[in-house]
């Protein structure tokens, strides 16, 4: 039995959604070890990071659209060493608690897992977005007031 890259991605995804903190799979010569959070307690098998790669290819916009063209967001590759903060839900993204107020975070700011980095509004309900990662904000990817999908990259963070 051979595992394709596709299979590995699916395994990672299933683990990511599971309750398990640690997972090891051995198929023939191939060994996959995955851990969420804390360092791996066992032998030093290389850790596979479950990078939430946004894989949606942008679709060509249809001609003569009466409303704004239904273009999918450009799924830019995540630069090596960076971790994205992604939208936990679909909606309208805001960088500040209210219009005119200073933004929750700016490029260069230190964030911890619990830092609020923005708001996403769905049907007049505002949901705060937590960083989920500790590090320095290196780029604001999503614009204030932009419609974002579930899983879309909002910020890039260099973990510390």
């Amino acid at each position: 039995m051979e595992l394709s890259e596709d299979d590995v991605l699916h395994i990672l995804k299933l683990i990511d959604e599971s309750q398990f903190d640690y997972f090891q799979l051995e198929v023939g010569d191939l060994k996959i070890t995955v851990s969420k959070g804390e360092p791996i307690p066992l032998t030093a098998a290389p850790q596979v990071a479950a990078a939430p790669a946004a894989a949606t290819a942008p679709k060509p916009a249809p001609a003569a659209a009466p409303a704004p063209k239904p273009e999918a967001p450009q799924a830019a590759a995540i630069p090596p060493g960076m971790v994205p903060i992604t939208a936990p839900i679909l909606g309208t993204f805001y960088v500040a608690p209210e219009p005119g107020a200073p933004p929750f975070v700016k490029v260069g700011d230190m964030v911890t897992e619990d830092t609020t980095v923005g708001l996403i509004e769905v049907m007049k309900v505002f949901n705060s977005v937590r960083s989920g990662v500790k590090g320095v904000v290196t780029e604001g990817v999503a614009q204030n007031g932009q419609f974002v999908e579930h899983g879309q990259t909002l910020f890039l963070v260099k973990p510390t």
Partner: protein
Amino acid sequence: MSVTRVLIANRGEIAVRVIRACQSLGIETVAAVSEADRESLAAKLANRAVCVGPPRSTDSYLKTNTLIAAAQGTGCDALHPGYGFLSERAELAQACADNKITFVGPSAENITMMGDKLEARKIARAAGVPLVPGSDHAKNPHEATRMAETVGYPLLIKAAAGGGGRGIKLVWDKNEIETTFRTAAAEARAAFGNDTLYMERYVGNARHIEVQILGDQHGKLIHLGERDCSLQRRHQKIIEEAPAYAVPQEVRAKICNAAATLARSIGYRNAGTIEFIYDNDTADFYFLEMNTRIQVEHPVTEMITGVDLVAQQLRIARGEPLPFKQSDLKLHGHAIECRINAESPQHDFRPCPGRIDEWQPPQGAGIRLDTHCYPGYFVPPYYDSLLAKLIVHGADRKEAADRTRQALASFHVAGIDTGIPFLQTVIDDPEYRSGSVNTRWLEKKLEAYGAAHGG
């Protein structure tokens, strides 16, 4: 009532079906997808896809507010709910109306009326449509026991909030009724958040007959003939046919007219289906429930009428009048639909998600396949197991069944198990071929199949 860009608030084969109908009318589409469906065929075919949440449908396809926000954020002026998920929740239709999004379906009011199965019985009675002898709301086991004397045994205890085969319990005699009533109430409370129960007499030798209707926004409503959906497993349809070959012509006409009368009585618009029970022994028919959406098995009606029902849904939603009248309806030949599910017939039909390594569907005269599958597609474990609907048309039932037999035999799938081997035994069964079946027939075949294949 403009329909220029439609949010497809569903997944699987019906999402693909709706996208194709939109394309045929020059309408743009946005596929609402969960994380697990980012690579789905619907996501590829639509003008764009928008991810609405994690794989679990309660976090994505069942979130009304998120779907409305997705429609607004992508500039959609209409939303098609497909079947299942939120298609029969008045809340979604109402939210669309409140946000000036055209809901491709009936009014929220009509969905509410027909969603309450007790209320639906009252509407049918008022419209003069025959009902299965039954009771009103039975509030407790003692009342149920008393009412059951009038209804007669065996009977069914049904949840008013149920429907589509869910929330039904069979009671053979009065020794069972108290216990079964309590179980049914608890289950209905858990499943639907509503434990209103009523009873109906159980028709043992029955066929499930349903009528397709279409109503426009200008007061015109017609029926498009009926379907026979008697072959069911645990109240889920497996094989559907049109027309209802075993019901006498004059009774079929009565059933279709009753359906149209009922739908007209509530000013119904868009596509809908009215389900009936037909008693094989007495040739009586009774109203069962109304489904206020497009049905899984709509293609068999399309094959014998030549009408694209989903395109009609979109045309009706944008205010066009129906382009034909009742007398224009002509039925041609016979159509059979087999539901191909990701399941293992050798292992008690347990669901079988995973990657489809090979996918070679049949081709040929009279063969249509509605599917979202392709070679290499990963069938996610989060949703129902429907992979494809094989719809086969023939000049008569025999030709349709012969072609179905051939099509199933040449349908090659590898990587996951499907129900195809079991469907083949059904299509070859002499009782099936002669048409002497009822709603319990398939369950017996399943038991026999399980015994023969070590299930």
